[in-house]
């Protein structure tokens, strides 16, 4: 079942620990994920570890689902990185800073695979 959520992105300890090793699977493990609270995961009807597609007005990406009950209802968190930035708002609002937080997103369960970093970036070429 689809979940409409507000997406925010930001740092995590594991994202930081692998930031200089972005070709590694550890980096993908740390950043190609989306956190939701258990209630929202219930709405999606799948379990943490399953894969979801995240669509916004600016792009789409497939990431792994992770549970974080610190999130309020309807809030999705993807660690900063190429997977998150595939769907954030590029508009700099006249101040130079793109929209990394507060993006309307549509989340759906999917069987599609999580693209590894090189393939994810290859989409832009």
């Amino acid at each position, binding site marked *: 079942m689809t979940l409409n959520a*507000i997406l*925010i992105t*930001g*740092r*995590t*300890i594991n994202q*930081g*620990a*692998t*930031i*200089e*090793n*972005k*070709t*590694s699977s550890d980096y993908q493990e740390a950043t190609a994920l989306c956190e939701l609270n258990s209630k929202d995961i219930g709405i999606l009807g799948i379990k943490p570890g399953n894969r979801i597609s995240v669509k916004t007005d*600016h*792009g789409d990406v497939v990431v792994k689902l992770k549970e*974080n*009950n*610190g*999130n*309020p209802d309807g*809030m999705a*968190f993807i660690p*900063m*990185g*190429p997977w998150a*930035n*595939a*769907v*954030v*708002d*590029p*508009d*700099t*609002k*006249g*101040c*130079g*800073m*793109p*929209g*990394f*937080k*507060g993006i309307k997103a549509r989340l759906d369960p999917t069987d599609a695979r999580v693209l590894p*970093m*090189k393939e*994810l*970036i*290859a989409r*832009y*070429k």
Partner: protein
Amino acid sequence: MTVITDALCPFCGCVCDDLTIYVENNKITNIKNACKLGASKIMGHHRIEAPMMRADKKSGFKEVSYEEAINEAAQILFKSKRPLMYGWASALCEVHKKGILLAEEVGAIIDNTATVCHAPSTLAVHEKGLPTATLGQIKNRSDIIVFWGSNPVHAHPRHMGRYSVFAKGFFQEKGRKGRKVIVVDVRKTETAAMADEFVQVQQGSDYLVISALRAILSGHADVVLGSVGGVPKEQLVKLVDTLKAAKFGSIFFGMGLTQSISRYKNIDNAISLITELNAFTKYVISPMRGHYNVTGFGQVCSWETGFATAVDFARGAPYYNPGETAANDVLMRKETDAAMIIAGDAGAHFPADSVRHLARIPVVQIDPYWNPTTEVSNVVIPVAICGVEVEGTAYRMDGVSLRMRKMVEPTLPTDVEVLERITERVRELRGE
């Protein structure tokens, strides 16, 4: 085996300077006192071994000499009408000076990773100034500490131990027990979990919540009707009383404010709150800067060009206007016709549209590591790691200047050497 004491960490804005590094035949074998982030960078990762080039972005790289790569980099910048030189935050101030000179020479826009981090804080400083203090002042005096839109447990792991919540100081001998910790965030982070009070605000409402606090503080609670940003009025009124009762209050803020709706106005509003609190008691505000030397670029760029970020040298003199001259502004407008990405990773940390444009123009990368920027680069020049293999100056998140140590000898040229040789080559191309 050599042991380096009081070494400095080249990862986050804390620049912890009490590390012990153990080195055996030019290899770092062990580290003491670094957090997980610092340890991961200092222990090191897989590196790009040699310069490489390719004509089009889809084909594989061909290994080349430094001479060839440097010449190609110079050609790209020399021919470019609207070059962007981005990154800088993981490099030392000595590198920034070479970068700003080269940007002048080729008429480029130079911008640093603050453009996706704390550049809005700089815009706020243009509006309101910045009432702040060095971290030791907070350690010694602060009895109320607020983290607003910032999650130090994840992003600045040793901040609370060395400088804020747990640190013992002259007037704060009891450390944690002498302090009240308040966390304001849209979600309950691990940092919020260890706070005395967690104020949960709706995403994007920080600006309104801060204005409400200021209205209450200025004696106009009557205009605040019902809840603001999901925070009941009673909680806001109580929070103002708590803040006013401090002997020395400090507010640390992060991406929660700089990247949300209203952008720089969130921080400029928070600065006004701090200024107005100073009428009652001592208050300071301090940005939780991400990279260990993103602050350093702002300092060097300010004293050399008069502006801290997003400087456009197209017409031979610095022109500054974020919203027009910041990296993502010109990339989004598809104006940039060549880019140099150095000590920063635009490929990973810029929105898709910007990376898409980078994929269509010649890109020179100067960086030790293979990352998403490498994927959209044409010329890749690997360099020594600043703060590990190269010593030099960095500025901590509170603006204190420190000298990073050399822990091991470099095996590759430094950023400074590469930039100097590119600049020489550009001058030759110009017939000087």
